[in-house]
């Protein structure tokens, strides 16, 4: 990030008023960044912001409600903050948002597929154009276009949509709403049987680790999640494809009209199940029926939490 020093200065200036500021820093190996909780100037010096900073830090906010928290956000992450504000899961007065214009993050799965074993990364350099890696003595140069996350290829909100401090220049987005749904349309072109078979195969691989849920900034009732509740008993503890699949439908339904497609659920999945497709489907239909997108207006109400007496956009079946 070009303006990293400016950002650090802004954070340092705000530090005395805040209990903690959340950003990213170096991780266990040069290919990863990790969430970073800054309380001192020395912590702020370790801040890093680049294409490896994939985590959506908004996920931490609800559990810090009541504290004075600063947070560094990319465009997509800022929409999660808006959504949390909208649902009163955080207080606007307690959160200081450091936003910037984002040029995209890498998809670690794409890197792994291109390089093979990424167990021993000795060095990694990321620029706007490429990711240069040295793995077990071998050099790799991966063009950014090949390893950038799918969501970034069709990003419409690269700049933080809400912020108290904005660092650097705004970035112009070029993608349209439709661009983001090409993968979904491709999937939808399959036959009913093909879709059913596809999910059976995919969901069978799920290990029920719930990483998808824990990474999701909008999954706020983790302690009381229906996946583990015995009253009501929605899911058994069996490792049956039925229960795993049902869990994903539960996740998608509870996110309908709230999911901002940050992609954290799918990124966190250790077995690469394309669960974002379910959420995209809801978002596409919600846009079509209610002309609504989550995470843009802190004052708006998610469409499934309200109604109209006449619903001109809902065509009911005539018997």
């Amino acid at each position, binding site marked *: 990030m070009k303006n990293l020093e400016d950002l650090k200065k802004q954070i340092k200036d705000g530090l005395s008023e805040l209990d903690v500021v959340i950003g990213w820093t170096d991780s266990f190996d040069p290919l990863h960044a990790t969430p970073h909780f800054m309380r001192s100037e020395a912590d702020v010096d370790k801040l890093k912001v680049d294409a490896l900073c994939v985590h959506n830090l908004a996920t931490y906010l609800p559990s810090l409600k009541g504290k004075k928290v600063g947070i560094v956000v990319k465009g997509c992450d800022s929409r999660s903050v808006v959504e949390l504000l909208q649902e009163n899961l955080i207080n606007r007065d307690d959160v200081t948002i450091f936003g910037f214009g984002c040029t995209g993050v890498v998809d670690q799965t794409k890197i792994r597929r291109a390089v093979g074993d990424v167990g021993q990364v000795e060095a990694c350099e990321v620029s706007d154009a490429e990711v240069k890696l040295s793995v077990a003595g071998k050099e790799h140069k991966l063009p950014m276009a090949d390893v950038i996350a799918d969501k970034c290829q069709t990003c419409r909100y690269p700049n933080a949509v809400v912020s108290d401090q904005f660092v650097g220049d705004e970035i112009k987005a070029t993608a349209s709403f439709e661009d983001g749904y090409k993968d979904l349309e491709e999937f939808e072109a399959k036959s009913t049987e093909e879709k*059913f078979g596809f999910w059976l195969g995919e969901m069978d691989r799920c290990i029920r680790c719930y990483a998808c849920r824990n990474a999701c900034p909008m999954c706020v009732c983790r302690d009381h999640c229906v996946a583990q509740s015995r009253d009501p008993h929605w899911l058994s503890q069996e490792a049956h494809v039925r229960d795993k699949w049902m869990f994903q439908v539960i996740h998608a339904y509870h996110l309908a009209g709230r999911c901002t497609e940050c992609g954290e659920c799918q990124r966190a999945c250790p077995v690469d199940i394309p669960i974002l497709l379910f959420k995209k489907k809801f978002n596409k239909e919600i846009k079509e029926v209610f002309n609504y997108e989550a995470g843009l207006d802190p004052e708006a109400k998610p469409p499934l939490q309200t109604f109209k007496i006449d619903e001109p956009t809902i065509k009911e079946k005539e*018997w």
Partner: protein
Amino acid sequence: MPVLEGKELRIVGFLCNWCSYGGADTAGVGRFTQPTDLRVIKVPCSGRIDPLFIVKTLMSGADGVLVSGCHPNDCHYAEGNFYARRRLEMLKRFIPMLGIDPDRFDYTWVSASEGQRWQEVVTKFTEQIHKLGPAQKIEGPEAEETLKLMEASL
């Protein structure tokens, strides 16, 4: 062997206590002939129906699910069915994603006095499900086909 074995499919109906259950009752009292495939679950209001009930029902082996509540503006609780309408419409649009034919699920409104309408709705919906035939099963003795699908997709 029961006479209907092989002729009936498993259809579950979620009916609200105040209108549609009454409508079904009216149809019964009026002795209107109806198909026998539908098993009714009475709920206090269509607004009580979590769309996930329907997904769970379909994933647990039902061949079809019908939801019926009070006509909009007639809800006993004033606005339960308005919320229900939005949720159910979203479900209708979502289930094809799972590889479930959207015609396996429908929602409608039937009032307590509309015995005739109830007869018509149940008959048409049952015909619709029979046209589709039994649904793909995820468990139970009929799940063998599903296993084959799974292997084919892996």
